[in-house]
């Protein structure tokens, strides 16, 4: 395992494979029960087994979230679930409720556990407390600043995991039940309806909104690695395959360049553009340099924008013809300059010279999602590589 872990989310097996193929050192997933994303597809036990096999064959790890807040009724079946995950050979449980820690210890389970961000750990004394319970790592509250983290790393050997990318709660995590009261869905058992992204009347001339912009730490990854943070976590178990591939590739590239001493400002600038485009909200570094002011939030309701950057997936490549068969995702046309990237393909650009459909007809544009097409690509690409618009 690398010293610096890039940890990606996966809502299903396909996403897990993409995350691993595109650079994740570890992936976190949820089972059908006991995790905090009830709306994600999540994994059955047999799928978790397949996920662990896929990851371990590639030297990667799988963490399973068992991080919801348990009510009495939820305790039934917990022991068997934890034992099943242990038997499968997952690499760690991500936990929040003391009932889960109790069960892991009572059952003498060898699989280690670490503490979810739901516990909103903000200081060294809290880390010491969870270390004393047996946690080898803690996920910090997203509200921690650089100074907080620096102090932790200088004073304790417990591994630190921080979020580096994705959506933010407006509240300290775990301490919000607005979803419960406004929509009767339990936020702490995976049903969060994101009430913080609703708009409200507050008796002014403006709708009241207080949702957070997203987190993006691309500017600070190098600094964070210098601090010695072990694990770099991306949020988003419900995100698309394209999002996961893009974000994994971006941070993998930046972290590898930092490690081998080749990281340049241009790299940061380029991947910042990539990440800005793939996100459907604006993103900033949030609390890293202190509590964000006006710039950290939205004030007029939901601000998500759709993204049509994902143009297609490589199905196969003919080296002799310099031609690829691809599956279309979004519109592109002859004359467009586009980019390809993949697990073994560095980001490269080329110009579309022709598009041929399955009836062998020349097309000016590819407009049908999932249509199988032939296009020219002047360099070798691999099955599964991703085509996207040129990032400028």
């Amino acid at each position, binding site marked *: 395992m690398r010293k610096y872990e890039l940890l990606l989310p996966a809502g299903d097996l396909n996403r897990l494979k993409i995350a691993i193929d595109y650079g994740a050192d570890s992936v976190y997933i949820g089972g059908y029960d006991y995790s905090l994303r009830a709306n994600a597809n999540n994994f059955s036990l047999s799928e978790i087994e397949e996920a662990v096999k896929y990851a371990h064959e590639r030297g990667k790890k799988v963490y399973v979230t068992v991080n919801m*807040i348990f009510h009495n009724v939820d305790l039934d079946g917990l022991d068997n679930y934890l034992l099943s995950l242990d038997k499968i050979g997952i690499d760690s449980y991500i936990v929040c409720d003391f009932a889960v820690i*109790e069960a892991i210890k009572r059952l003498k389970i060898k699989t280690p556990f670490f503490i979810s961000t739901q516990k909103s750990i903000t200081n060294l004394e809290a880390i010491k407390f969870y270390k004393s319970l047996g946690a080898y790592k803690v996920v910090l509250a997203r509200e921690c600043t650089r100074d907080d983290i620096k102090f932790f790393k200088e004073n304790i050997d417990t591994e630190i995991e921080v979020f580096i990318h994705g959506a933010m709660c407006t509240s300290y995590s775990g301490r919000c039940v607005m979803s419960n009261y406004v929509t009767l869905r339990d936020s702490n058992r995976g049903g969060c309806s994101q009430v913080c992204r609703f708009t409200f009347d507050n008796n002014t001339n*403006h709708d009241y909104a207080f949702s957070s912009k997203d987190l993006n730490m691309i500017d600070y990854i190098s600094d964070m690695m210098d601090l010695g943070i072990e694990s770099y976590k991306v949020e988003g178990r419900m995100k698309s395959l394209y999002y996961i591939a893009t974000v994994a590739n971006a941070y993998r590239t930046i972290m590898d360049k930092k490690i081998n001493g080749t990281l340049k400002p241009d790299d940061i600038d380029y991947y910042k553009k990539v990440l800005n485009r793939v996100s459907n909200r604006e993103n900033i570094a949030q609390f890293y340099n202190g509590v964000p002011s*006006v710039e950290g939030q939205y004030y007029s309701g939901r601000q998500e924008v759709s993204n049509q950057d994902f143009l297609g997936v490589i199905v196969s490549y003919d080296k002799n013809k310099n031609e690829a068969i691809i599956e279309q995702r979004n519109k592109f046309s002859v004359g467009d300059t586009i980019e390809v990237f993949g697990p073994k393909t560095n980001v490269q650009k080329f110009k579309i010279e022709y598009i041929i459909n399955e009836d062998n007809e020349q097309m000016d544009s590819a407009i049908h999602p999932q249509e199988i097409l032939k296009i020219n690509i002047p360099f070798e690409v691999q099955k599964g590589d991703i085509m996207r618009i040129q990032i400028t």
Partner: protein
Amino acid sequence: MQKKEFLIIPNTKDLDLYKKYNLNSFILPLQGFSIGYNCYFDIGEINELSKQYNIYVIVNKFLHMTIYDFKRIYNKFNNKIKFIVEDIGLVNIIDKDRLILYENHILSNYKAINYLSTLDINNVVINNDLTIDELKEIISKTSSNIYYYYVSKNMLMYSRRNLVKNFNKYYELEDTNNYLLSESVTHKELEISDEEVGSVVRYHKIFCASKYLNDLNILNLIIDLTNINDTSMHMILENIDNEKLCDLIDSDYYFLENDIKYKVGDIK
């Protein structure tokens, strides 16, 4: 388990106003370490009041580095005073017999409570979004000293951001530190207030569990008067032992009687 005790979180610093109700136990928000209350007390005031009353101090902020500011003042408190704390790091600082762990909305099952007890954390505040059946099961399967928000405008969210100040600044509005928010579809109302160190949202309706007082009176019952108007406050304090209290004020106890759904497929 201790016998019932009513604990009051006041909405004014003048505790003499509560004398006529024969209340002797108060939970006082600590200046600089608490958030979301109508009034705060400094250490001198708290120690002085502890000569007359049973005093608990509530520290409900996540403390970050200020945990060490608390550590520096901890020994200056009268040693009769107990502490209700949100930040679990304080477990390493406060003596266990003076500590009441209050992870807001988190502590929701009997096994978690019993596990904490093995760590000598025997005083806990439990979630008050639980059903009465869940509460009864917890009471029957634990021996810890449990505290419960019995009457309160429940605190639903706590942010480190200045959610009111930022809104006002964005729209160049006059300074206010609070709004009543109304959601257009559900018409649910929330109270948001801003302080220097962050913001909190409280539910506009008063949670009141009086209907089940006989089942709950083995617990230490917290009455949080924050944001409650004078009329309701007097009604609450005059009827503190009355099972009908919930009918005398504009109250809501939905979660006491209804399981909450948490998977979309469960919502019919």
